[in-house]
């Protein structure tokens, strides 16, 4: 197979880049080891930064965020909720930091409005009575799954292709170029060889491993961040702690729920990343200083992602290492057609894609300008069902005749049918995890207890899962959910977990299937 550009990694960078190149008429293939947004792109706050968070530590990043925020609000409004944001300082926080904040914002061109603590609490009644300073900024909430699915769907419509569950196993080099890339499907084991003119490594936390296969050394640091999903939406706006960035200091509304985080824990390995009980407790402690009710409420699950950081100055703490955009052109290491995008931010994904595409075009010897700054991102069925409130909205509008496959999130069977069609159109693997990624299935209070079995039934009835594939897919889905449930199992969620285990273990004996032992 030949292509002009092979993009390795189907996260927000890779899919954004695919759309950018496709809009310029460049033929490209995205190879993704898992599914869309398998890495940090799918494990973050979904925060569209106003830029204000970085005004003290990284003014360039702050400006970039602000500019991109405005662009994305124009080109992809269906992926964004324009919530607005608050920065609040509570008793004990650095008063100087709070006092300097508005000036720093205006230096970066970021609008902010000072509020009295009373005004802030009027806007957000859950705020602590210990708030002493508050500013209103232009933060928003962005759905990273919808964003990547729509970017990819548009790119595919323009001729790009996507290889799901396809892993790079090696590069063949010739005359200072990558001649071919060897890939293998992780499910079937089938191999593919692609001869690309240009290769872009957009694998996020995995860039070093991929580059190493081409003989290029990149030193990375990994910082794990854990987030919590609340049972209901706590605030209308994004709420940021007005202090030097730290643990548990951002609460972002995500449709019907809120996302609270994060932590920053240095990890050496990317294997077995899980949110821990200790991190969860720390986030609840810190978050409750801004919003006291965060201590008593229900948390549905936790999740953890990795911030990939390019190793430059190890004396800085991980949040201070610039996460602004960088592009490594491996021309300097003797490979002319290979670039790596080592790190970045969700809010500035478009900008990173633009700059990377510019470089790729330059290498291809074409000069076609970037269109993503103004070209609206089309809304398609691919990304439709990631939206938290869509199920209830549609159901409320008379879609009640259709059987529900998920009662927590009110997802009707025909929504899953549509999703399966879109996955098929894009040649994806159809299983429970793929459905879960593209919809609210498994995201509600029961965490897959009932919807897991119903979607499994649907996939077996329609022949997408055959024989024992069904239970295997169900097991993977339940374990995926469990990873996030485990650290928040107290109060209501331990009750839910007990119901789940009573059914799957107590009634179905799922744990001993496939290993029939008998005494």
């Amino acid at each position, binding site marked *: 197979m030949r292509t002009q550009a092979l993009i390795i990694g189907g996260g927000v960078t890779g899919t954004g880049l695919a759309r950018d190149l496709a809009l310029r008429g460049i033929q490209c293939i995205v190879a993704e080891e898992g599914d869309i947004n398998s890495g940090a792109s799918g494990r973050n706050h979904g925060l569209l930064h106003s830029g204000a968070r970085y005004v003290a530590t990284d003014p360039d990043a702050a400006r970039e965020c602000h500019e991109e925020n405005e662009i994305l609000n124009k080109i992809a409004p269906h992926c964004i909720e324009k919530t607005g944001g608050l920065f609040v300082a509570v008793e004990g926080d650095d008063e100087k930091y709070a006092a300097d904040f508005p000036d720093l914002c205006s230096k970066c061109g970021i609008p902010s409005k000072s509020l009295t603590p009373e005004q802030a609490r009027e806007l957000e009644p859950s705020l602590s009575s210990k708030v002493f300073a508050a500013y209103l900024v232009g933060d928003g909430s962005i759905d990273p799954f919808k964003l990547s699915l729509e970017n990819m769907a548009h790119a595919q419509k323009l001729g790009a292709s996507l290889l799901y569950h396809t892993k790079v196993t090696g590069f063949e080099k010739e005359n200072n170029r990558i001649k071919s890339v060897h890939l293998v499907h992780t499910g079937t084991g089938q191999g593919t060889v692609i001869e690309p003119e240009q290769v872009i490594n957009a694998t996020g936390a995995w860039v070093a491993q991929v580059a190493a296969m081409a003989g290029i050394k990149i030193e990375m640091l990994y910082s794990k961040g854990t987030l919590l999903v609340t049972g209901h939406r706590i605030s209308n706006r994004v709420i940021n702690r007005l202090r030097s960035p730290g643990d548990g200091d951002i609460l972002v509304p995500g449709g019907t729920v809120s996302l609270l985080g994060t932590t920053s824990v240095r990890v050496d390995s990317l294997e077995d990343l899980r949110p821990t009980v200790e991190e969860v407790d720390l986030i609840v402690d810190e978050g409750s200083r801004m919003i006291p009710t965060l201590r008593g409420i229900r948390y549905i699950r936790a999740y953890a992602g990795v911030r990939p950081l390019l190793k430059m100055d190890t004396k800085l703490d991980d949040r201070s290492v610039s996460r602004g955009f960088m592009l490594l052109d491996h021309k300097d290491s003797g490979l002319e057609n290979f670039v790596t995008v080592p790190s970045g931010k969700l809010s500035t994904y478009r900008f990173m894609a633009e700059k990377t595409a510019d470089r790729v075009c330059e290498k291809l010897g074409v000069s076609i300008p970037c269109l993503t700054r103004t070209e609206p991102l089309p809304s398609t069925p691919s990304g439709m069902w990631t939206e938290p409130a869509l199920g209830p909205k549609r159901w409320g509008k008379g879609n009640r005749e259709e059987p*529900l496959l998920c009662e927590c999130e009110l997802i009707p069977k025909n929504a899953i049918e549509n999703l399966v069609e879109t996955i098929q159109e894009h040649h994806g693997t159809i299983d429970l995890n793929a459905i879960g990624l593209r919809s609210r299935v498994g995201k509600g209070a029961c965490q897959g207890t009932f919807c897991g079995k119903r979607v*499994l039934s649907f996939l077996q009835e329609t022949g997408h899962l055959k024989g024992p594939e*069904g239970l295997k897919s169900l097991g993977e889905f*339940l374990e995926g959910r469990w990873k996030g449930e485990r650290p928040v*199992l107290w109060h209501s969620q331990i009750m839910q977990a007990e119901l789940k285990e009573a059914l*799957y273990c107590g009634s*179905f004996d799922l744990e001993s299937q496939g290993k029939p032992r008998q*005494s």
Partner: protein
Amino acid sequence: MKPASKPLECELAIIGCGLSGLSAALFAAERGITTVVVGVTGGTIFASGLLDLLGTHPIEKGNRWRDPWAAMKALCVDQPSHPYARLDRQAISESMEKVVSFLNSEGLPYLKAGNRNSEVMTPLGTTKYTYYVPQTMWHGVQALQKKQPCLIVGFKGLADFSAVQIAETMADRWPGIRGKDIVFPGSEKTAGLVSGDIMARDMEFPGNLKKLVQQIHPHLENAEAVGLPAILGMNRSHEIVEELSEKLNALVFEIPTMPLSVPGLRLNETLISGLSARDVKFFTPNRITQWKKDADESFLLDVGPRDQKKTIRAKGVILAGGRFWARGLRADQDTIREPLFDLPVFQPGERKNWHRKEFLDPKGHPANSAGIEIDNLFRPLNEKGDPALSHLFGCGSILAHQDWMRSKCGSGLAISTARAAVEAFASQAR
């Protein structure tokens, strides 16, 4: 202020109306003990209807036992703190027989394979080992054992039961199994979901059975057995199953369903109506809001919301309040508590030790062995290891040192410890 109404007097108050609480009420009623049951929604309506005794031991090896009594012997040696280890085989066996013969006399017959476990199908297409099987499911045990050509029938709109999914999952070990969805008689025009309990009651209308036979017939082919979701009637399901078997000339059987399951409802309704007829009083759905000890050591239990508050005065109390789902235990962020009597709870330390990394970890989750500690008279213990309160007894899944979900011992544990608690009450408090 309204004068407080006179307390309701009884000998025994049972807290919890799941299988353990209801069994305790049965054993108490049998002894002529005046009994009151307080509880919310009993756990039995979440039940599959199967009565497990002991299916798996040791859980980390996933050994499934055909002989539950041999399994129990091994369990009591390996885990001397398990509640079963406080009972002998005869006591456990008698308690099971008692409950089953009661259910039988109330029109809900159960069967078992001698003294052995039977392998039954689940609504996920897996199988499990259980002891007593509702008669309506019995043909399924035989069909599975012999791998007879079998048709699994599902109903369009019955969401949590998929004939095709079951057949697909079982096909590897049962080549002659097929799944087919049909329309339930009378629901041809109803789109959307149909619920199991409504279907079960509809099945008892004359004419529906005949229609169902007509619907199934074209799909029978070579099937010698026909499995359906457990919705075949509410009160006379075994008769309906027999009639269907005859008319289809095949072994018809029910397969348990997800909650709220009809076999669970049958069990719940049968127990409650039978016990009510034996003068057991039910204060349901209610929780105890407050309790204290009277001067004579009786319990004074306040029940219900403030404006409708009732007080029960009981010589003794059996706590059969279940675990987290039933709120017999409560997990705070850092500790597991027993919220009503504030009994000490045996638990695995900090929250990070409560659950393992994998949901299906064969070792099971330590939080599921948390619970209240008891002595040989089933009296909950205080921190010093003495009975916490005079005339308080505990039974069922709230007890520590057992994992009923992994061991498949929920019903046996509920029933046998209920009997032990009632006997202890009778010997101590009467």
